[in-house]
């Protein structure tokens, strides 16, 4: 078989993190090829290398058997590779035809843009795809599905032969998915190679001939889809040894601290209910985009919700007010440390005491180094490695920054701590420290909600797991019931 595109033993690292290690596979003409793996398995990095955004550290890409080296997206495009992203990036104020012709506009003899040729070309492409979109209308206001079709038309107009589709169906309705698949099948049968990334197995079995499975940046296998059951695929995606240590301590489960009832927000999450009790670690699991962070941000009040209620120690919490949540005894260690967790330019001590400065003030004034004493005590307890407390917090390493965020919220003496991806982007040693800390705190009676995309972390730390899928609670599992497979099944919408 002739390989249209080959990925040969590529490796890509970001800092100390190896995102992709020694991955090889080939895409053939007339083939739809699925790429699957957990969050963080390295799929996106592969896509970005194919798109010319990242360059492999080692290994090569080959088109038609010849090695290529993409200096940028333009090179990838010239080699005939087009990428359709989950959220297309059209120019909203240009017409559909202009978007398709972008960078490649037909010219009249006077070197003016030939609008008529441009529109006719777009019309021809849409006919070929069998869809009806007015080429003259502006791209603004097109549905996501239509925007993707415009992107596909754009790919066709540049004579792309490899179409990489990065979770194209995530935001589509059933009918739209069917239409996208019809178009994709037609292109495949015309001899294009399709790389299809999706978390939905029914789509993979419906569309693809072969599947490549990745795990932790490594290539697990490439096999015909027909030879694998969904079970096989999931096992291979998650199948890793649970050797990493999660120091789970036994805690006495106490009174109910948080009750979330029917929480909904239009288009983000719907009818989410769960409870958290003192001493309990509840994990919110699910795929990226399942609405986990959004739910917890609404609970804490930094975001709004449309309906439902949040009760804290039996009392209804004022919606949309982080201050009320804090006063009640809640803390949130957010997902995005740099943008939400810390004020990078401010000193370590100011960051630690930011939510608490009111309580530290005497007669409304902050004098005599109360902030420094407070910050020193908490950063020492968490064994934060730092120079001076007056240094900007941005000078610390990621792990120590995370400790500052934890110190900041622990200093408020919370009854419930929400931690969103508490160990993302921090080194293994600090990771274990954070796990130990959360465990100890729970054993002392703190209620913890942990949002995490790392299954071992979820399984190792949680007493209970609430699995979200597409904005609603797909399953609630006890520690005993939870396995990597059962959580993944629930997260991906497969019956277990």
């Amino acid at each position, binding site marked *: 078989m002739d390989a249209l595109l080959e990925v040969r033993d590529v490796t890509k690292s970001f800092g100390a993190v190896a995102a992709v290690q020694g991955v090889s596979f080939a895409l053939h003409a007339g083939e739809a090829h699925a790429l699957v793996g957990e969050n963080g398995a390295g799929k996106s990095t592969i896509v970005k290398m194919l798109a010319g955004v990242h360059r492999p550290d080692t290994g090569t890409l080959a088109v038609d058997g010849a090695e290529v080296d993409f200096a940028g997206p333009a090179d990838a495009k010239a080699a005939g590779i087009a990428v359709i992203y989950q959220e297309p990036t059209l120019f909203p104020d240009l017409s559909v035809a202009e978007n398709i012709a972008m960078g490649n506009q037909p010219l009249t003899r006077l070197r003016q843009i030939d609008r008529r040729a441009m529109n006719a070309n777009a019309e021809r492409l849409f006919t070929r795809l069998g869809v009806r979109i007015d080429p003259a209308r502006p791209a603004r206001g097109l549905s996501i599905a239509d925007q993707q079709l415009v992107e596909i038309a754009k790919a066709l107009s540049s004579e792309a032969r490899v179409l990489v589709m990065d979770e194209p169906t995530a935001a589509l309705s059933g009918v739209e998915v069917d239409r996208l698949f019809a178009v994709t099948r037609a292109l495949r049968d015309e001899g294009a190679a399709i790389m299809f990334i999706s978390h939905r197995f029914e789509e993979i079995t419906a569309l693809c001939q072969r599947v490549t499975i990745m795990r932790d940046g490594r290539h697990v296998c490439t096999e015909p889809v027909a030879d694998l059951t969904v079970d096989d695929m999931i096992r291979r995606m998650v199948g890793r040894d649970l050797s990493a240590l999660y120091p789970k301590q036994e805690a006495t489960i106490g009174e109910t601290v948080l009750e979330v009832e029917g929480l909904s927000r239009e288009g983000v999450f719907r009818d989410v209910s769960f409870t958290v009790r003192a001493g309990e670690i509840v994990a919110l699991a699910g795929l990226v985009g399942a609405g986990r962070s959004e739910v917890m941000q609404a609970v804490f009040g*930094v975001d709004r919700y449309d309906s439902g209620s949040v009760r804290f120690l039996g009392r209804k919490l004022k919606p949309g007010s*982080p*201050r009320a*949540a*804090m006063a009640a005894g809640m803390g*949130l260690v*957010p997902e995005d440390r740099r*943008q*939400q*967790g*810390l*004020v*990078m*330019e*401010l000193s370590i001590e*100011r960051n630690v*005491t*930011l*939510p608490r*400065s*009111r309580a*530290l*003030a005497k007669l*409304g*004034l*902050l*004098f005599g180094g109360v902030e420094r004493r407070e910050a020193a005590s908490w950063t020492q307890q968490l064994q934060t490695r730092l120079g001076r407390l007056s240094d900007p917090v941005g000078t610390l390493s990621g792990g120590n920054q995370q400790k500052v965020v934890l110190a*900041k919220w622990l200093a408020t003496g919370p009854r419930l701590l929400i931690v969103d991806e508490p160990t993302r982007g921090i080194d293994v040693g600090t990771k274990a420290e954070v796990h130990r800390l959360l465990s100890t705190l729970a054993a002392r009676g703190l209620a913890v909600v942990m949002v995490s995309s790392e299954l071992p972390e979820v399984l190792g730390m949680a007493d209970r797991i609430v699995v979200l899928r597409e904005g609603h609670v797909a399953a609630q599992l006890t520690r005993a019931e939870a396995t990597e497979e059962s959580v993944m099944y629930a997260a991906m919408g497969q019956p277990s």
Partner: protein
Amino acid sequence: MSEVRRRLASWDSIIIALTVLVLVVASVGVPNFGTSRNFTFLVLDLMPIVLVALPMTFIIVTGEIDLSVASTLGLTSSLMGWFWNNGLSIETIIPLCVLVGAMLGAFNGFLVTGLGLPSLAVTIGTLALYRGLAFVVLGDGAVADFPWNYTGWVTGTIGGGAVPNVLILIVALALIFGVVLHATPFGRSLYAIGANAQAAHFSGIRVARTKFWLYVASGAIAGLVGVLWTLRYSSARADNGSGLELAVVAAVLLGGVSIFGGRGTLPGVLAGVVLLAALQNALRLQDVSGQALNIVTGALLVLSVLLPNVASSIRATWHRRRLRQAAAS
């Protein structure tokens, strides 16, 4: 390395040193600069700038701006004349003008925080709007017959000595604003808002509400300065204080407040105001022309923005070099 960095980073300490230097050199080298009479004039001249600069510092620290202050001043001055012509007592007029200023500020605050409009655009708009209204109220005329005991207090000195009465007001307000900015939870929250509004929000700080009240404060102080300005020149006019906003913003930036928010100190700003005023005063005593004064002011402002940037790019180069050395070894 870190010592140099620390020094470069605290621009406000440089500006304070520079201000002291200018004051000393001018006292020694410029005839009449050090006289008590000149001191009185110097204080009266910098009064409107320094007072308006206090809330302006707060606003710029949060990453916003208020360019409508001079027009607020003009409108309250016009209203003061109009109220006086309509027979209100001066004791009623003064608080009323401060209140009107606060309301004009609240309108700015509503547009910026309630509707989420950019403060630069909003306050350029109200700069024109409020000045226009000032002319509607009073036209081209002036009202001059304010009671002598009030106008005399503003221009007078304590016990007929060298210390102007208004200096008490300036010192009192500067102390209040300085303590609030540097030693209260509210002040801490302003820096957090300016440096990262999202993180501030996640820390339970009420970002919009805080900014709203800053605009109210800015308007109220501008209203108060409208009153003081009117009494000082004994003249309520619609064009009072034209262009003052630029002098204020210049002084605040010169004082080391970052236009992007999150950085700056009130002592730095006070030094910036004094530096600008003293320099202008000294040059004027030397018979330097008005245009030349503008050139000096403008150059100082550009330098104040340029130097911290140069300093930080030097820092970045050092940092890169250090990383390369670390990688090589």
